């Protein structure tokens, strides 16, 4: 991925550091560490802070496809891992309080050990409560072509690497939960057909609307909350202690997907796009109706049966998705209702 434009002193300092060789400039590394330590306490809301979210996004990116021109050895540089942990700690805290708010009054988690059917039922119940502010309805019925393009740009931050954050969890699981995750991921990655990979289907949709389908091509364009929703998955996926959260995250993602994707597809059909463009959404209607059953019962449920102590984290992952995605939707819909762009700077008018 191309290195984005810095959004403040933290991302600026990070990109400066990454331009050099790992370990070549310990003073700059110390300076950045001190800057982060000094800055974080005065950041109002870590989730909506562009500088923090961009720095985290790029630190995580070192574990995915890497950053153009950056030495791959930075990935496991102890100083950078320490920096990432400095940023992750308040981010996780903020996610936990957002998730608690979204979960509503206590009483959600039944006492005692739950079997996998009961875990699935709790998760389906949570997903059903997510009425959401109506993004899919708007896309289906009202969104302009320019809004459809913005919608794809927000989604592209994740969808061009769709499924990757959850894949980190595979070696951290065992037995039924592991088999379930592998079964879902194999489908996400196209069942052996590269052109059927969900990320490839999404790239095709972007090209159909004249958008750049290169990975990370629109990182500069999206607000902090769009980056935060993807950073949340990387946080859950890359930290083994949060394997419950990544399982809950995937389950809710799948459980809140089929119907919205049907509506998204309708929105693009309304603008005259054919199956080449809507294929991504059509695929998710069918795939996620399968995945939600496996993710709820076998992945999340199987994990809780094997490790009952992880139930709170499964629910944390699930409610964090609902909370963060609701904020992202509010941001986008709020901008559109005001007749403005939901991006940091408006796209040039569609060709």
């Amino acid at each position, binding site marked *: 991925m191309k290195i984005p434009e810095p959004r403040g002193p933290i991302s600026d300092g990070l990109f400066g550091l990454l331009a050099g060789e790992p370990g070549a400039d310990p003073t700059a590394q110390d300076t950045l560490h001190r800057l982060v330590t000094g800055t974080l306490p005065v950041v109002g809301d870590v989730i909506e802070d562009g500088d923090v979210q961009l720095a985290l996004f790029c630190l995580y990116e070192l574990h995915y496809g890497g950053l153009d021109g950056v030495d791959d050895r930075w990935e496991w540089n102890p100083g950078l891992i320490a920096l990432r942990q400095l940023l992750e700690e308040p981010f996780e805290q903020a996610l936990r309080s957002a998730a608690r708010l979204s979960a509503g009054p206590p009483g959600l988690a039944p006492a005692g050990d739950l079997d996998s059917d009961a875990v*699935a039922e709790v998760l389906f119940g949570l997903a059903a409560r997510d009425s959401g502010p109506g993004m899919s309805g708007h896309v289906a019925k009202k969104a302009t072509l320019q809004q459809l393009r913005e919608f794809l740009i927000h989604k592209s931050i994740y969808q061009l690497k769709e499924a990757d954050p959850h894949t980190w969890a595979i070696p951290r699981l*065992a037995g039924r939960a592991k*088999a379930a995750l592998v079964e879902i991921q*194999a489908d996400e990655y196209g069942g052996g057909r590269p052109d059927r990979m969900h990320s490839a289907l999404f790239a095709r949709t972007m090209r159909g609307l004249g958008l750049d389908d290169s990975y990370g091509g629109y990182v500069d364009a999206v607000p902090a909350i769009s980056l935060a929703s993807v950073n949340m998955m990387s946080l859950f996926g890359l930290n083994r202690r949060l394997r419950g959260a990544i399982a809950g995250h995937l389950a809710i993602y799948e459980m809140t997907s089929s119907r919205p994707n049907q509506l998204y597809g309708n929105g693009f059909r309304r603008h005259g796009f054919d199956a080449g463009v809507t294929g991504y959404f059509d*695929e998710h*209607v*069918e795939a996620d*109706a*399968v995945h939600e059953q*496996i993710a709820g019962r076998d992945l999340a449920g199987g994990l809780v049966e094997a490790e009952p102590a992880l139930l709170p984290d499964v629910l944390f992952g699930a409610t964090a998705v609902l909370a963060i995605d609701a904020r992202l939707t509010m941001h986008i819909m709020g901008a559109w209702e005001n007749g403005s762009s939901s991006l940091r700077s408006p796209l040039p008018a569609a060709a």
Partner: protein
Amino acid sequence: MTQVQQEPAADGSIVLCPDGPILVRGNFELVTPSGDPVPRQRKTVALCRCGASAIKPYCDGTHKMVRFRTEADATPSKKETV
């Protein structure tokens, strides 16, 4: 972590999902009454059980919106082997 034997040895399984579809995994052919193959994009499929899916024979999650309920006693053992 102990490794638990999860599945009996069988070619596949049919899972009766509570209030949801029928999940079929393993080796099987999905055919029309005349024996023609039904287009299929994935190994494991969810077959519509509520009748409300727009992409039958597959499930599209609509059972949640029509509040489809499987009888409480219909799934005494949730998994049958084929």
